[in-house]
């Protein structure tokens, strides 16, 4: 295995007494697409800021491209691309100017930046918006421009903090397609998300983070195999009845999860569980059999849903 580009060992970030990140360890190999999955406030963004060399760690060890960010912040940042959670595009500049000016922050020569800017506008499918105002772009276009901007210095690692949060489904799919292309080209991606479908689509490997600690680590499919059953049966009996019915369902499937609005029954075969429920004389209002997802992994590990 080649030398990892990110090595975090027992990484800790404390704000006064509160530990936002409380002993996280992981490694990312070059060309790998690695995810931090967890709910809001899990410590994902704080971890990202430390990896991005804009936040100093309180404890543990961190090496980015073999360098210690405490000492080589500027060197590390010059080889990273950063897509922050909220767009911070320069609204006083036009679309193409955003790329040009940003490239100059890295001290890159004008001609090189100009050539790269045109390539990236094509990549982000924003060629016809080159002279547009940033405020006039849609949310999806702004995100694509932010990603293009992050690529201006041909970074070794691209950091994406919640890349598709707040976008409509169509814009998300366009963005995923672009990120997937980067992945195919061998760019190392480190991304945070609280969407399990995003993690499943984009991540080779991921860690599930909650309250500043890692709950599990592995490839999406492997995590699902380890922490969940093959299928899930979701049944609804109405908000008032769910809890009462749950008692009668005890023993069905491998495991039960009772949520406020529905009951999840984990099983290798969801259909046969549904037959058992109906044979027992219970009448769910709705029922759905689906494959297990990372959402179920998270529920299993923390007892909570990802989006609350």
């Amino acid at each position, binding site marked *: 295995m080649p030398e990892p580009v990110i090595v975090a060992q027992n990484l800790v970030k404390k704000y006064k007494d509160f530990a936002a990140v409380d002993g996280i360890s992981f490694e990312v190999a070059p060309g790998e697409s690695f995810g931090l999955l967890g709910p809001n406030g899990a410590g994902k963004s704080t971890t990202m800021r430390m990896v991005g060399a804009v936040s100093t760690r309180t404890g543990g060890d961190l090496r980015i491209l073999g*360098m210690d960010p405490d000492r080589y912040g500027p060197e590390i940042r010059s080889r990273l691309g950063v897509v922050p959670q909220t767009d911070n595009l320069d609204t006083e500049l036009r679309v193409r100017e955003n790329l*040009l000016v940003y490239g100059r922050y890295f001290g890159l020569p004008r001609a090189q930046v100009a050539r790269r800017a045109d390539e990236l506008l094509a990549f982000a499918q924003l060629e016809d918006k080159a002279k547009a105002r940033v405020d006039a772009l849609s949310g999806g276009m702004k995100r694509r421009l932010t990603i293009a901007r992050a690529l201006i210095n041909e970074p070794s690692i691209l950091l994406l903090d919640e890349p598709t949060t707040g976008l409509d489904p169509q814009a998300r799919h366009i963005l995923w397609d672009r990120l997937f292309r980067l992945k195919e080209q061998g760019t190392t991606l480190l991304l945070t998300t609280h969407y399990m479908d995003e993690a499943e689509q984009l991540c080779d490997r991921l860690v599930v983070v909650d309250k500043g600690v890692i709950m599990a680590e592995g490839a999406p499919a492997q995590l699902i195999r380890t922490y969940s059953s093959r299928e899930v049966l979701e049944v609804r009996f109405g908000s008032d009845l769910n809890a009462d019915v749950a008692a009668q369902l005890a023993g069905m499937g491998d495991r039960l999860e009772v949520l406020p609005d529905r009951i999840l029954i984990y099983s290798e075969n969801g259909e046969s569980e549904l037959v058992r429920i109906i044979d027992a004389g219970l009448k769910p209002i709705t029922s759905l059999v689906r494959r297990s997802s990372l959402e179920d992994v998270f529920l299993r590990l923390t007892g909570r849903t990802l989006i609350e």
Partner: protein
Amino acid sequence: MTGIDDLRTDAAASRPLGALYAGNARSVMLRGWQATRSTNWLVVVSGFFEPIFYLLSMGLGLGALVGTITTESGQEVPYAAFIAPALLAVAAMNGAIYDSTWNVFFKMQFAKLYEGMLSTSLGPLDVALGEISLALLRGALYATGFMVVMQVLGLNLSWWALLALPAVLLIAFGFASVGMAVTSFMKTFQQMDWINFLLLPMFLFSATFYPLSVYPQPIQYVIQVLPLWHGIELVRGLTTGQVDVGMLWHVLYYLVMILLGLVFTTRRLRALFLD
């Protein structure tokens, strides 16, 4: 990948200011120039006319009633020639303050501009120097225009007036530097209003429109502590040709302002964005 720390040691050691400065403040200035050209050049132009309107109304209008006025050193000068250097210093202050306070506040709190800059290889000192230099450039632009108007109206009484230009740059640098430092601690619009609340009386009472000797002694001391008075005295001495060694104190005052402002701005940006 092994040994990269050793290879890079030289790079870190050759940066005397460490991670604070990448030697690329130029790119921050370039961004400001681009933004001005792209969106807000009208605001910049409007700032140029403000002190000229003051000069025309008070200097020529009020000056017709006042006639001449006696300066601190006992020289009689026309009223317009008395207030013109003060307005010049104020113009430099206003240009620098506008860029380094409201502009910086907006960029920091809403546009998240510095957050973006500091996730590149730029350091906080690059950002501070770049932004302050830009404010300085604007102050210089206003001042040069104003000096031309003064010359046309015959209000530059001596060749020393040529030195008023660098003096004005010094004043602009001082205010820009401290302005950005103060702004970096501000969190709300209300706090930003305090800056204006302080600036207006300073503009009116810093021996701008009449000599300091008008005030009783204790109030004179208060005025002499404030930065604008030092700026006005410095510029007035030069444009009226009453130069003495004591004016170096005014220069020193501004050098200290510049230094303190830069140190606090850099430290604050570091705490805010690279904690």
